[in-house]
C-alpha cells in the first residue's frame, strides 16, 4: 500500500538535481575500431571526480551540449579511478555528435546509474566473461576490476569474439592478456581476411571447447547481440549453470536513468534501476527481455 508522505524527510532541493549533468572534458579519443572509439573523460571539478564512484556494469547518461543525452555503459574499472572511459559505437544522432568532438571539448555526465555487477557475490568464486562484439564494452570494466583485485577471485576466464580482427575492441590490450598466467584469455574471430590473426578462428561458443569451466563455482557474465545470448546461454545451461549465476547486461533507450521516464521498461522492470544487469532467471521471467 502507498506510504504516507513524510513532509520532514523530503525537502526538495534543486541542488540535488538528478537531471543535472556534471561537466567533463574529453581528454582522449582512441580510435580502436572504425565507428567504435574509446572516449576518455575527466570531470572538470576535482570534488566531482572524487565523488564519482561506480561499480562494474553501471552506466552514465552522457550529454553532448546542443544535441541531447544517451545512456552509455562504463568501460573503465573503478579500480582505475580518475578518468571515465566510454566505448561508443557511432550509431545514432547523439553518438554521431560525440564523434564530431575533439579532445578538450566539454560534455555533461550524470550517474553512475544502474545496479552494476554483484561483485561481492562473485568474490571467492570463478568468473567467466563471455562477450560478443560491442558487448565487451560493459564487461571490460568487470574484467579489469577482477584483474586489479586478483586475489579476491579464483579463476578468471575471458571469451571474446568479434567478426574479424579489425572489429575486435581493445585488441592490443586483450592480446597482452593471452600470455598472462592468472587469466585464461580466449580471443576469437569469425573469420580472418587479413591472415595476421594469431588467436582463435571460430564462433564464440566454440571457445567453451578450449577450456573447462566449473558451473558449481562460477559466475558467468554475458553480453552481446541477441545471437550471442542464444548460443552462449545454450552452452552455459548445457554445462549445468544455475540460471541465477548467469548475469546479463541489457540495453534500452533510457531518457532519465533514474526510474521515472518509463522508456527502458522490459516487462515490468526498468532497465535503469532494476538493471542493466539481470540474471538469466530474471530475463526468462520478463517478457520482451532480449
Amino acid at each position, binding site marked *: *500500500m*502507498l506510504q*504516507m508522505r513524510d513532509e520532514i524527510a523530503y525537502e526538495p532541493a534543486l541542488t540535488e538535481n538528478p537531471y543535472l549533468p556534471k561537466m567533463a572534458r574529453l581528454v582522449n579519443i582512441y580510435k580502436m575500431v572504425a565507428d567504435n572509439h574509446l572516449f576518455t573523460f575527466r570531470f572538470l571539478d576535482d570534488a566531482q571526480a572524487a565523488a564519482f564512484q561506480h561499480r562494474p556494469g553501471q552506466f552514465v547518461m552522457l550529454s553532448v551540449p546542443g544535441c541531447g543525452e544517451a545512456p552509455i555503459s562504463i568501460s573503465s574499472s573503478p579500480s582505475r579511478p580518475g578518468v571515465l572511459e566510454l566505448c561508443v559505437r557511432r550509431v545514432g544522432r547523439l553518438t554521431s555528435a560525440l564523434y564530431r568532438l575533439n579532445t578538450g571539448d566539454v560534455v555533461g555526465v550524470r550517474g553512475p546509474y544502474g545496479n552494476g555487477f554483484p561483485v561481492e557475490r562473485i568474490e571467492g568464486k570463478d568468473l567467466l566473461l563471455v562477450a560478443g562484439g560491442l558487448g565487451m564494452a560493459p564487461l571490460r570494466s568487470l574484467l579489469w576490476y577482477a584483474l586489479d583485485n586478483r586475489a579476491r577471485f579464483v579463476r578468471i576466464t575471458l571469451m571474446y569474439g568479434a567478426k574479424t580482427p579489425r572489429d575486435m575492441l581493445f585488441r592490443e590490450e586483450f592480446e597482452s592478456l593471452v600470455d598472462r598466467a592468472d587469466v585464461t584469455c580466449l580471443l576469437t574471430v569469425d573469420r580472418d581476411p587479413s591472415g595476421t590473426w594469431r588467436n582463435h578462428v571460430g564462433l564464440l561458443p566454440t571457445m567453451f571447447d578450449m577450456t573447462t569451466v566449473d558451473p558449481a563455482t562460477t559466475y558467468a557474465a554475458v553480453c552481446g547481440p541477441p545471437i550471442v545470448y542464444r548460443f552462449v546461454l545454450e552452452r552455459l545451461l548445457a554445462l549445468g549453470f544455475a540460471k541465477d549465476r548467469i548475469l546479463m547486461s541489457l540495453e534500452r533507450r533510457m531518457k532519465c536513468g533514474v526510474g521515472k521516464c*518509463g522508456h527502458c*521498461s522490459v516487462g515490468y522492470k526498468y532497465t535503469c534501476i532494476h538493471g542493466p544487469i539481470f540474471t538469466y532467471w530474471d530475463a526468462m521471467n520478463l517478457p520482451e527481455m532480449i
Partner: protein
Amino acid sequence: MKILKLPKQQLDLFASVLQQFGEVHAPVERKGKYVFEHLERWSDAALDYDRTVLPPKKYVLPPRETLLEYRRDTGYVPATEDLNKKIVLFGVHPCDIYGLNILDEVFAGKYPDPYYQTRRQNVAIIGIDCVPDEHCFCRSMRADFVEHGFDLFLCDIGEYYLTFVGTARGDDMVLSAGALFEDVTREDIDAYKRHSEAKREAFKLDVEIRDLPEIFEMEYRAEIWEELGQRCLSCGSCSMVCPTCYCYDVVDEVELGSTEGRRVRQWDSCLFSTHALVAGGDNFRESRASRIKFRFYHKQRGFVAEFGRPSCIGCGRCIVTCPVKIDIIEVINQLRGAEHVANA
C-alpha cells in the same frame, strides 16, 4: 484527524480566503466537459462535475517542462521557471488525489525528482467527495476513499461540507477563515455515514483486481491483445488523460546556429511507436498489439510488483476518451472470464 464543518452558503467566502494561499484553480465547464483551470470568479467553479478532461497531474508534471538551460559559459543550469508558483487546487475527487499519491511514489524513491516534488508542495489540494457515474470504478481500485494527499477534504452532507484537515497548511486555511467553520455534531457524523453508504450503492461498475496480476501472467499470449492491437489507433489519449501515466520524453532544443538551448521533458506514451525504440533502430514493441498489452501490463501487473497496487484509480477517463472505445473493464472481464479468448 481534525474534522470540522463548513456551512454550504459560506463556501464562496472561504474560497476568497484561499486566495492568500495561492492562485485558486477549480473544475470549470468547457463545451460540456470540465477542465481544471484558474478561476476568474468563484461562480465559475463547477463542483458537481463528473471528471475533468485532464487529471491534476498537469499541475505536478506539466505536459511540457523545461528541466535545464544550457549555456556555453555556465554549462547546464536547472530551470526554475514557474516552479514556485503557489496554487490552490479546489475540488479534487478522491480518485484523483489517489492518483497524485501514486505519482508521489514514482517521483520519490532513490532519486527524488525535485521538479515534481517542488510543484507538489506548491499546489495545495482541496478535495471534494463525489457520486460515481456509469464509468467510475474507483471503488474496485480502492481509490474511492482517500486518507492523505490533501490539505483539506470536503464532503457534502446536506447543509454542510464535512471538512477533513489533512495538513498544517490545511489547518492554516481553516484558521484563516475565522468563524466560518463549526464543530461537528453526532448528527453530522450520522449524515456522513449515510452519504458514504449511498456512495457505495451508487457504483455501477465492479471488477475484482486481487488476482489480476496472476491472470495477466497467464493470459500473456491471449488473442485479445491482437484484437485490441487491431482496434487501437496508438493515439496515446488514454495515457495523456490518465492520472497515473507518467512516462515522459526528453528532448534538447537548441537555438539555430548555437549550442545554447534547453532540455525539455514532455508527456509521452508507451502506445507511441517510438517508445521502445533503441539506438540502431531496433524496436522492442513494434506492433500496436505489443504496445497496448504493455500498457495494461504495466498498470495492472508491473506496478503491483513494484508498489503493491495497480497504477489505476478507476477514474474512467480512458474509457470516455478512447476514440475506438477500448474499455478497461471489458478487457479485464474478458481476461478474467472468457476461456475462449485465452491461449488460442
